[in-house]
């Protein structure tokens, strides 16, 4: 009777799935509070030092940022395809969609790394004692902007790294898993992935698009 469920706690598959989904959403709510708190810090600084932040924001690379947003949106699309395919038990396309998702995640991280590299070279990274040289009107608060930029984007990148790692792990274990557990996992990791995408959807305009 319990064979179709993963956990001893449940009698039926349907109940377990509902519980899993709900659990994932509660977790996402919790993560949203994490990013929300940091966004609040940003918002307050932005209100106080608007001009400095606008000037500093100009120094970020808009093309790379836009590219990355598109990459991440595409990865989300691939993820939802993976989910759709698993739901209709089309395993092969599902695996390909998952591979795409994680590759796009890696592309995002790579582009982000390129951006970081650029910012370090231009002396825009007030991190690890690296020299900071900003030639705008208000370097102190521009530095503050970059501090927040690095804090926020690195936290987001960390989440993405976790996502990529989990997908990779899932793909490695793929052949040995039951069909039921596959749908199960794709669904859970999918929710997480989309959430990380949503976070970026907010970070992008907030950081890159201050009065171009």
């Amino acid at each position: 009777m319990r064979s179709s469920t993963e956990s001893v706690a449940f009698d039926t598959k349907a109940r377990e799935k509902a519980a899993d989904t709900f659990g994932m959403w509660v977790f996402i709510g919790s993560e949203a509070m994490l990013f929300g708190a940091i966004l609040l810090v940003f918002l307050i600084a932005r209100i106080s030092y608007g001009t400095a932040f606008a000037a500093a924001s100009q120094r970020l690379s808009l093309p790379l940022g836009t590219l990355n947003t598109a990459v991440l949106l595409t990865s989300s699309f691939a993820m939802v395809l993976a989910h759709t395919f698993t739901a209709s038990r089309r395993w092969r396309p599902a695996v390909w969609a998952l591979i795409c998702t994680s590759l796009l995640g890696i592309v995002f991280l790579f582009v982000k790394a390129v951006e970081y590299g650029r910012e370090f070279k231009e002396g825009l990274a007030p991190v690890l004692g690296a020299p900071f040289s900003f030639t705008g009107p208000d370097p102190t608060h521009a530095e503050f902007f970059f501090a927040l930029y690095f804090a926020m984007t690195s936290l987001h990148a960390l989440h993405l790294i976790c996502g990529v790692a989990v997908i990779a792990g899932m793909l490695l274990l793929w052949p040995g898993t039951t069909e039921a557990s596959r749908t199960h996992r794709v669904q859970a990791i999918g929710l997480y992935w989309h959430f990380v995408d949503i976070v970026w959807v907010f970070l992008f305009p907030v950081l890159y698009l201050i009065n171009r």
Partner: protein
Amino acid sequence: MSFGIPFTPPEASSIAGSVDMLFYTLLAFTAALGIFLASLVVFYAIKYRAGSKAERTGERARSLPLEVAWTVASLLIAFVIFGWGAALFLRREHPPLDALEIAGLGKQWMWEFRHPGGQREINELHVPVGKTVIVSLASQDVIHSFFVPAFRVKQDAVPGRTTHVWFIADEPGRYHLFCAQYCGTQHSEMGGWVTAMPPEDYAAWLGNQGKGDTLAADGEKLFRALGCSGCHEKSSKVRAPDLAGIFGRPVALENQQTVVADERYLRDSILEPKKEIAAGYDPVMPSFDGIVDEGEMQMLLAYLKSLSPRAATRNEATQ
């Protein structure tokens, strides 16, 4: 009667009595409610102990009228206490006119005070009895807190902004001055004494102190030394606002807004001139962040305030 054991702090300021009044009222309420609840519980515990012959039949274990009654009663009592506390608290916002303003600077781990006449003291504060004293507080490093239990006043000194606390000492004496906000290794040693003395004695005491310049005069020297006067003097080639009478005056800003030039505005104008640009001027003033330390800031502020003699006394304490 108390064998040298303290039960209450001295009441040595104009507000101490009214704060204590609230405190003791609340204490009486707590005691009354505590005794009532304790007797109730003990009474039930005895009456309804297992094996007693008390009557136990009837009644379900709920009662809407009772729930409503105690909820409403608690709410009403709570609102009364809230209102009373808030009314007393808001007096902090409105110090009486004609105050003596002393600059207090907290740093790890001492309090440094400068009287308007320039007299400087460390971990000691002399104040006249019967006169409003405003201490404007700044911090050089971490958060400290100015605390004089006998006056029932406390205010944090926060790096990067100026805060205020005011009191009127009404009983001559020596009272503890503490730093109440944990600030590192010697937090418990950061403090000393506040000496409240009759105004004549205070004047005499001031006279006996080293003949330092006034705070404002020091500020004026700085104003020249730092090159402020180079721009802000009337004869200057740079077009910069005339700072005479600036303090307390509304200032029109470039972005159509108007702000009152309070201490926060002056401080920001010096440290972050780009933040609020006065209307009609170019944003050419350099930032003095990192050049002016907190002590110097207090001198500059004293000088700028001294340029508007009427406003300087009508001080808005705290923000």
